[in-house]
């Protein structure tokens, strides 16, 4: 299943509806649905944040393959930016020193079973893999 969404935060409601439809279609549970929603929100909002001038919509494809839910987010006209290579946020700092930046990618890296990044000719693709047996 594939959807295409304008690059703004207001798209999240439509994205969540799309993801819910994917979960229902594949007869998957609330647990994987929660993780899918969180991972897609974090990657989508990163794409919006780091490429606000992009003219094309961001596409999201969700497929069930070999016991895993494989989700691809594709953005166009973007410079290379691999979120998986960013310095991990320090979650052990005391309250007054904690900063919210980097928390989203930290959550994604800890909660999904696989994250892959590919960039070619201005097109970035981030692939998230979630095992359905989780």
């Amino acid at each position, binding site marked *: 299943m594939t959807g295409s969404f304008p690059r703004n*935060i*207001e798209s*999240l*409601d439509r994205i*969540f509806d799309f993801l819910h439809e994917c979960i229902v279609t594949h007869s998957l549970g609330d*647990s994987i649905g*929660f*993780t899918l*929603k*969180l991972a897609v*929100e*974090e990657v989508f*909002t990163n794409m919006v944040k780091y490429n606000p001038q992009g003219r094309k919509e961001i596409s999201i494809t969700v497929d069930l393959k070999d016991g895993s839910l494989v989700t691809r987010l594709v953005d166009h006209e973007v410079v290379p930016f691999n979120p998986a290579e960013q310095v991990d946020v320090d*979650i*052990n700092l005391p*309250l*007054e020193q*904690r900063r*919210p930046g980097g*928390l*989203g990618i*930290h*959550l994604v890296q*800890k*909660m999904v079973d696989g994250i892959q990044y590919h960039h070619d000719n201005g097109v970035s693709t981030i692939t998230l893999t979630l095992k359905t047996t989780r």
Partner: protein
Amino acid sequence: MLTIETGANGEITFSGSLDASQADRASDFLNTVEDSAVLNLRDLEYISSAGLGVLLAAQQRLQANGKALKLTNVSGQIRDVFRIARFDVLFEIE
């Protein structure tokens, strides 16, 4: 959609989804909280890093004045998110 309610006892309840599209509303509300308060998350179904950021900012502001948010009814995957982000050490969770 996020629903915010305040009970007669001053307890705050967040219900629904605390995602990036709702973070500003949650932040605007929490910015009005000036004393220690209980935040009941019983019916919160979802939270992302944007929501965590709102809670973090509120807790930092309150703690600077010797106050704090206490969280109640943090269950299931919301609790997992708190644990992974190590927010379980930043808040008293009942």
